[in-house]
């Protein structure tokens, strides 16, 4: 079932273009966009996390919240570029432990971003007073940890054989 879906994605004309076109706008630009999106998402979430943990306290919390607009831009870039990179090599990607771990950490990061908005940034009294609540601090820590883990395991997708060896898994052929 999964194999059939992966086959279908792999054979899409768009997938074929990303994978095989010699154009600079195909695989290489998509890959670069993914790096830029990563830097935006991780970098801006770093600012938000550091501020909530006490760095750069001059940043008004209401102003800080507006930076989530940048997070969404970065995330959108990476959702699109990530889907294109996935359909270009669906079997290889789906076989990687690091890929699924990365998706999990990205999902945690985005859920925590949403929780921060709902459980902390909507607390107008605290935000106005410049007060970071315990909930805000704890979510900031989870956010930073999950984004940097996402970055680390994301980079490991370039080394599937090494990861499998570390995990004691047999090296799957793709």
């Amino acid at each position, binding site marked *: 079932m999964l194999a059939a879906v992966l086959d279908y994605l792999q054979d899409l004309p768009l997938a074929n273009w990303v994978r095989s076109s010699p154009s600079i706008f195909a695989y290489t630009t998509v890959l670069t966009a993914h790096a*830029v999106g990563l*830097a935006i998402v*991780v*970098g801006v979430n770093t600012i938000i996390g550091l501020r909530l943990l006490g760095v750069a306290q*001059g940043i*008004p919390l209401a102003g800080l919240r*507006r*930076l989530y607009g940048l997070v969404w831009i970065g995330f959108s870039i990476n959702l699109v570029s990530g889907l294109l990179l996935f359909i270009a090599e669906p079997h290889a990607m789906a076989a990687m432990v690091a890929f699924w771990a990365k998706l999990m950490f990205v999902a945690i990061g985005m859920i925590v971003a949403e929780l921060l908005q709902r459980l902390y940034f909507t607390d107008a009294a605290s935000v106005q007073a410049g007060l970071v609540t315990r909930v805000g601090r704890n979510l900031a820590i989870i956010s930073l940890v999950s984004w940097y883990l996402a970055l680390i395991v994301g*980079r*490991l997708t370039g080394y599937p054989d090494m990861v499998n060896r570390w995990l004691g898994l047999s090296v799957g052929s793709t």
Partner: protein
Amino acid sequence: MEGIAQFLTVQGMQAFVNAHEWVWPVCEMTHYVGMSLIIGIIGTLDLRIMGLFKSIPIAALRPLVPWAVVGFIGNLLTGIVFVTGTSSGAIFYINNLSFQLKVIFLLLAFANLVIFQISGLERAVYATPAGGNAPAAAKAVSAFSLVAWVLIIFFGRMLMYNDTLLLFLGV
């Protein structure tokens, strides 16, 4: 060029990279962390100077700059590991158009930063209050910084696909 490449190929570093398979991926991760800190912090500062997020006083972002500097130093060090330790030899980087362009844009970003500091623009920018506008010249410097850093990532990522760039440029 050959001489420079020979000088930049450090056999001890090559041996170290070859002996431990974790060295290269760990340096890549560090390089990505530095990239994120620079783009996140310097990019946000650039956007604020250009007029976005006006509710944030520009000076409030200043305590974050050392974090970006730490990221840059990490990238300089890991970059040195890549160039000196690759099994292909430093010649791979020296002769690589993507790498050459990356270095050029790094130097331009550095020159841009020096202009920002010695022209007095930096002082004017940090004196801009919440809701205030930075000087037009500072906005131009920030726009240049933003474009330069994105191009630095672009050409850095293109290193491994230099043939695609050469084909695109028709050279």
